[in-house]
């Protein structure tokens, strides 16, 4: 059987849950293919992995596809994975009295300059008409620096955001899932070359992945248990992750659906804030060739 190599940006990010579910529920096998999951350090690294030929299908935001094409890495989004920043929150320590407006002139932690968290921070600056310093501290530096008071606030991803708000260490002052207008935050991406050479394989892979989304929606207990196991976290937090991110994921993935183009455009526009130059037109970064047919259990 053909093997599809799936590139995932970080382990504690929902795409890993999706892909793991597909593997554990043998959805790839049902499609007659095999999957090999590789975890990368973050979004950019995942994209580099695909460009280097080490991954066949990856999950990343549209901005990287646009930037990649500029650098001669020809790829497209083949399936729409999420239309919002689910689980992303602007957080302050619980005892802090600061609100979003009060962050003017303060320091806010992000994971890396130009990353998803940076875009959200920039969006906040623009949308709330305030100015603060964005301090890149890496994924591992977010909570420690927030709790130590080196920064006044942090843009935190899920399920870390749920974890520290549940533990009472931090509280949310802005929930990006609802605050930011719907835009295509992440999609499944393949190289044009690969899509042309093995369209069947790509189709089967997206079928399995969306089959997994369907399975997860239908099987709360199993999924919560899986999240708890994968992320090494208590079931309560896994449940929050399930309710607030997994349940929000796109179920069809169809890039041809109405509103998708506008959502991609918005996503690219947001990326401009982060310093991305010469953004390509939407048509160049998406492909409508593959419409996922979720694999049934």
């Amino acid at each position: 059987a053909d093997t599809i190599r799936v590139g995932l940006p970080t382990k504690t990010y929902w795409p890993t849950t999706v892909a793991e579910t597909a593997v554990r529920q043998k959805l790839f096998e049902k499609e007659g293919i095999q999957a090999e999951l590789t975890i990368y350090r973050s979004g950019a690294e995942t994209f580099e992995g695909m460009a280097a030929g080490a991954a066949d299908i990856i999950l990343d935001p549209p901005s990287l596809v646009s930037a990649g094409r500029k650098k001669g890495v020809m790829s497209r989004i083949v399936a729409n994975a999420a239309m919002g920043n689910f689980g992303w929150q602007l957080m302050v320590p619980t005892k802090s009295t600061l609100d979003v407006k009060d962050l003017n002139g303060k320091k806010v932690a992000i994971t890396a300059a130009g990353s998803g968290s940076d875009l959200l921070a920039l969006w906040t600056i623009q949308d709330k008409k305030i100015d603060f310093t964005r301090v890149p501290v890496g994924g591992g530096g977010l909570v420690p620096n927030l709790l130590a008071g080196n920064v006044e606030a942090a843009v935190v991803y899920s399920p870390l955001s749920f974890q520290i708000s549940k533990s009472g260490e931090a509280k949310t002052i802005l929930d990006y899932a609802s605050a930011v207008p719907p835009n295509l935050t992440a999609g499944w991406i393949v190289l044009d070359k690969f899509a042309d050479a093995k369209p069947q394989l790509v189709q089967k892979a997206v079928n399995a992945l969306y089959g997994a989304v369907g399975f997860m929606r239908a099987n709360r207990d199993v999924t919560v248990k899986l999240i708890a196991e994968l992320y090494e976290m208590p079931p309560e937090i896994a449940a929050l992750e399930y309710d607030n991110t997994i349940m929000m994921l796109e179920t069809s993935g169809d890039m041809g659906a109405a509103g998708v183009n506008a959502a991609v455009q918005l996503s690219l526009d947001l990326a401009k804030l982060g310093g991305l130059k010469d953004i390509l037109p939407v048509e160049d970064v998406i492909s409508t060739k593959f419409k996922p047919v979720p694999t049934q259990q």
Partner: protein
Amino acid sequence: MSAKTLRHLIVIGLIVLWELLPRTGLIPELFLPSLSSTLIAGWTDAAEYGHALAVTLYEVVVSMAFACGGGILLGAIVGSLPRPRVLIMPMVSSLYAVPLVILYPVFTVWLGIGSESKIAFASIYGFLPTMLATAAGIQTIDPQLLLAARSMGATLSQRLVRVIMPAAIPTVLSGLRVGGALVIVGVVVSEMLISSAGIGYLISRYRTILDSPHVFAGVLLVLFLAITFNAAIRWIERKAAIWQTGTRAGHANDEMASGAMQPAT
């Protein structure tokens, strides 16, 4: 062909490859942008890079003082006094075995996210190799020389400055090279991990948005730092060579010694 010519040819070769490999598509531009596009990227944002270089340079210089100064001093003490050596050395090299890069994000909690944490990290990073090389170099000193100095009433500090240092100078300088290079790497890497200023910050920011020409423009600046540092070391080496004749480096000019090396090649 003289060594210098060959080296220059290699450098020119590397430059040509750097331009051609990406242009011909043998290496995707994402991984290695051509030299020209790198230079253009750097030139376009020269002001930004200049500012970053100032920040990094400051951190490198301060760390260098800590790492090299401290490393040589402690290495000299530890290398010349057996008791502290057997006690301290194993502890120090064991502590160095803790993979600090991984803990760096946590360290910033206490050291802050500004220059201090970079300086601390880079100093530690460059300190041990300098210290170990110094200590090891000192241990290989002919004990007879120390005995002679002692008989003439040399105090510990006199022995350190007048005997141990000059005798260990080749080893210490090589240690300094390693330590200094690590300081540069340490500053840049810690900037890449956590910071909002400096060359490392720019590298990692441009990397996140796949802007490889700007990434490599940053790398070029790091290279520039290394070249500057290398020039400084060579200057010291030349100064040192004057009073170092007769030790190994001095002998190397001798046909006898260079003859000795022939079979090894």
